[in-house]
């Protein structure tokens, strides 16, 4: 079940919330939509779920257009909107029954499905309560359960973990990962570790445009450029001696002692080269003990900040 977004534009008055976005998502992918608030993530999701029509452009879900085949598409999508709106005056079970029936689950299968969802989403103890009486975490689970009840092939989650405690976040992420094995998932978030933990692919949106698209690793490589190492060298005389020795290596561009530590250094290689072997050989030659050598990765936070600030 693939999603193809073609030149999508959505305009609210003079402002373009989504500005000519195109991308496609293949079956079985978990795609993370990343971007600052107001970047156009939610609008894009609303268009994919047939809640809103685009100003121009099109979205094809499994070859069917959101402009024409709404009913067919809606049946295949499970959607958890932003802020998780629910009928607070309804009991959990009744609500799931309602959601399932609207998605066309036949009467005889409905009860099994509900029981299944209650089990998967861990709602057993709360199933007879009104949704309004539940804590935020449980409401989020109800939101997920209603999105999943008809076993949709596509799952669209708008900030699924907002407002949850760390344990609940881990659980929900695990659930998403597990679901994502068979389904196409698009989730939006501005929590960066979340994307790294759950997504196969990241789309970064800013001001209605896609500014980056790729796996976490490729994004990191793109923005990183030079290799950066953090090394700790013990049993060596003084610090200046080490620095001058390291500076003789051709592969290194810069040696930078870490402040507050006597024997730790940040080494940046010249573009396109690898200095690990040379540093190791140097230490062997000088009989220094190399107690730490870690490649320093650019954090997703840095990439995000770089791409989304003007």
């Amino acid at each position, binding site marked *: 079940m693939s999603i193809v977004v073609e030149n999508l534009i959505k*305009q609210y008055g003079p402002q373009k919330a989504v500005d000519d976005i195109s991308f496609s998502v293949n079956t079985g992918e978990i795609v993370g939509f990343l971007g600052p608030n107001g970047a156009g993530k939610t609008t894009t999701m609303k268009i994919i779920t047939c809640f*809103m029509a685009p100003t121009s452009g099109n979205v094809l879900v499994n070859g069917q257009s959101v402009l024409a085949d709404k009913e067919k598409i809606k049946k295949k999508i499970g959607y958890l909107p932003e802020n998780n*709106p*629910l009928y*607070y005056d309804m009991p959990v079970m009744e609500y799931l029954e309602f*959601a399932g*029936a609207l998605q066309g689950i036949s009467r005889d299968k409905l009860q099994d499905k509900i029981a299944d969802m209650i089990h998967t989403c861990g709602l057993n103890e709360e199933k007879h309560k009104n949704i309004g009486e539940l804590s935020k975490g449980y409401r989020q689970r109800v939101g997920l359960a209603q999105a999943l009840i008809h076993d949709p092939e596509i799952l669209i989650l708008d900030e699924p973990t907002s407002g949850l405690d760390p344990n609940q976040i881990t659980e929900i992420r695990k659930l998403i990962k597990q679901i994502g094995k068979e389904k196409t998932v698009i989730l939006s978030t501005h929590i960066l570790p979340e994307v790294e933990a759950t997504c196969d692919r990241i789309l970064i949106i800013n001001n209605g445009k896609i500014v980056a698209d790729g796996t976490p690793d490729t994004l990191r490589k793109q923005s990183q450029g030079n290799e950066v190492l953090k090394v700790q060298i013990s049993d060596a005389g003084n610090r200046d001696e080490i620095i001058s020795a390291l500076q003789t290596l051709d592969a290194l561009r810069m040696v930078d002692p870490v402040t507050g530590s006597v024997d730790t250094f940040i080494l940046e290689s010249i573009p396109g080269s690898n200095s690990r072997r040379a540093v190791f050989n140097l230490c062997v030659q000088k009989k220094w003990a190399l107690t730490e050598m870690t490649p320093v990765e650019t954090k997703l936070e840095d990439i995000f900040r770089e791409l989304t600030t003007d």
Partner: protein
Amino acid sequence: MNKIWIIAVRELRTFFDSLTAYVLIIAFLGLSGFFTWLFGSDIFLIGQATLQPFFSVAYWTLFFFTPALTMRMLAEENKTGTIELLLTKAVTDWQVILGKFLACLMLISIALALTLPYYLSVWSLGPIDHGSVWCGYLGLILMSTAYISIGLFTSSITNNQIVAFLLSLFIGAFFLIIFNVLSSNFTGPVGEIFSYLSLSSHFDSISRGVIDSKDVIFFLSVSTFGLILAELSLSKRNIID
């Protein structure tokens, strides 16, 4: 049809869970019972075996109660955002509107059905014109469909229930009183148009036992028009501008 029914049943359940239904039914029965049996030009004062006093009270009570039922229908969904959840399920905008319409109509029908003991009591008191009683009930139901549609429309254009309530009372007042007043102030075709738009003349003739297709068409067209407007306002998010 199935989806409409699912939505209608949920709405009806919400009415009963939230006590709205009980409050409405008790207030409706209390008010109409009071004026039918105890006070004003009640049945004993008229001295005829007729439900005419009840119909003229219900004519007013439904005018106030129907907007109270319809006001939260879409306004609350707009406000809490559940409308997004509802419309991204495999339903059409029309199914949502008709489901909500049906739920209100069912609740009003339940309230009206509970007044059937009035009918039986009057029947036991004297010779009653059965035809005119059933026509009166039909008139009340037709009138309710018009109010419900107006109420659904006003509820769909706002996310504030009070605004929805007052707006639908306002629009309802045009049909109930204002067109009637205007029609007596104008002569010729303009006066006739206002007179046709006035709800009271149509209701009066039905509740007297005369079912004229003209009157039925009037109520059904007001309802249809209200529902179409409600659907348009719900689907305006889809307008490609």
